[in-house]
């Protein structure tokens, strides 16, 4: 039996059974197509609280759904499914399952901040997008995005050593994201660098990779920065009802590796 206006129903809400018996009655065949209810049966008031406790999400409660953010959105112009206005509403009303349907595109915000300037209520939608992506990761709904992993490695290295070694960041990043170091663009870049002989830089890269230089007397700064980061991370995780705090600085170290004396 054809379903009237089938295009209005999400495919996942349709279920067909070739062989179904309900209350002893065989309802197999075309009767066994069921449309799942799309009724919202409750608001989960925790979600707005949680996201407003993450950096960028503080002003989400100001939204009155005018749509200026979506209208001005760079990503929405390319992908109409990317709708900040809608997600802000879902978060405010606690419609978690609806929000999770879009979990794999929310991170795509390019932070152009056009919405920030368009918003008449200073909701800072760009910040809300960041906070939401962060929330999805912390809650385990999405894996860490490559940019989150990059941030962690970068921050971890700065906190650990007080220095940035590009070569090491690149290698750690490739390693954690499962990418080969022998990528075409990397090879081309290194070849050209060799051709133009920035000997000193290449040497520094190699040296940094092998000896892991660090800023002298860094221990005090590191412990202060680390303390701050841990405190913030703890706040965020607590707001989301999570535990298991991660020591960000330690992420720079490989498993089993210990921190050398300063």
């Amino acid at each position, binding site marked *: 039996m054809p379903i009237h206006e089938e295009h209005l129903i999400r495919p996942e809400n349709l279920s067909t059974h070739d062989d179904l018996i309900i209350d002893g009655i065989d309802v197999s065949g075309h009767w066994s197509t069921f449309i799942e209810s799309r*009724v919202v049966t409750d608001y989960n008031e925790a979600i707005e609280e949680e996201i407003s406790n993450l950096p960028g999400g503080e002003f989400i409660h100001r939204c009155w759904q005018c749509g200026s953010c979506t209208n001005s959105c760079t990503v929405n112009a390319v992908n109409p499914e990317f709708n900040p206005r809608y997600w802000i509403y879902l978060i405010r009303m606690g419609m978690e399952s609806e929000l999770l349907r879009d979990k794999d595109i929310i991170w795509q915000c390019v932070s152009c901040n056009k919405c920030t300037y368009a918003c008449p209520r200073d909701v800072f939608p760009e910040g809300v997008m960041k906070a939401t992506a962060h929330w999805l990761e912390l809650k385990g709904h999405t894996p860490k995005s490559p940019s989150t992993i990059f941030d962690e490695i970068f921050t971890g290295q700065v906190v650990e050593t007080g220095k940035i070694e590009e070569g090491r960041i690149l290698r750690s990043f490739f390693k954690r994201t499962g990418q080969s170091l022998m990528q075409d663009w990397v090879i081309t870049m290194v070849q050209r660098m060799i051709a133009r002989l920035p000997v000193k830089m290449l040497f520094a890269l190699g040296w940094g990779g092998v000896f892991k230089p660090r800023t002298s007397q860094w221990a005090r700064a590191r412990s202060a920065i680390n303390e701050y980061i841990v405190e913030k991370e703890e706040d965020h995780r607590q707001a989301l009802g999570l535990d298991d705090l991660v020591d960000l600085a330690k992420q720079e170290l490989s498993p089993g590796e210990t921190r050398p004396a300063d």
Partner: protein
Amino acid sequence: MSKPVLIVGGGPAGLAAAHSLATIGQKSILVEKEDILGGAPILSGYARLVPSNEWAKDAIGGMVERVENNKLVTVKTGTKVDEFSGKPGNFSAKLSDGKTVKAAASILCTGFTHFDSVNKPEWGFGTFENVVTTTQVEQMISTGQGVRCPSDGRKPKRVAILLCVGSRDRQIGREWCSKICCTVSANLAMEIREELEDCHVYIYYMDIRTFGLYETAYYWRSQEEFKVKYIKSRIAEVTQKDDKLIVKGEDTLVKRPITIPFDMVVHAIGMDPNVDNMLISSIFGVDLEPHGFLGKGNAYGEIGATSRPGVFVAGAATSPESIDDSIAQGHAAAMSAFALAQGPSKVAAE
């Protein structure tokens, strides 16, 4: 000695008119059918008023006192006008206490009637104890009792305020916007959030009409400081399951039906024409406008004019009106009545 002005109704508009006339030395007779002055804010026990945030009993109470203590105002409570005749400058009114008074002019400040929510049975008022009106919530606050579920006195954890109950609804013959319910509801939502910190307040609306400067002080503030949530939806029905009210409707922004449990549902009731308007219309010989309020002339000639010369109108008798505007209209209508009371010779001489 000029004849007095007959003011009908002792609410904000009538009190303002009497005070204005007394200020310029003009006598008036203030007739009020209830036993006390003050009108809806006092009789219905409103809490804090918009936009002054003063308690109704202080703000309107002060106006009552000012009029009651003025020798130029003759207050007649528990009294109605039974008959009214005569011409501008020379009217005669027979009152329900048997007395007949002469008046130069009359100002009708007969106000409105709160919409009776029983007329929207699908929203559960009169069926479920925890469905209440904005007036009842005002009373919970003004009496100091606090916002509680009437069924068992518990503090509600989740409250829904339904806007446009008895307004903008052709089904029940009420096509007008009652003008102040959005602002009053935003104000009540903030009061609820202030008293009960862990109570979430949702406002279901068709449009938000917190006009003029109320936008920031009520609509924005309720969202930004008090985290009140606004959902664009006209509720279909309210039912009950155990101790929860089940609110059904469509969340228009997600295009999905909603069936949400609440502890308390508040009807933001609108302003009906005074139930006595047909009677008032026939006694005073003034026309009603199409919605049933007292008809009003344009604002460019005589302020507060009705279809009958010498009979003026002010406040919510003539359309849904805020307290501040009712007071302003009372003062303005007093000017029109004063001109008549002073007599045509004096007007011509100046």
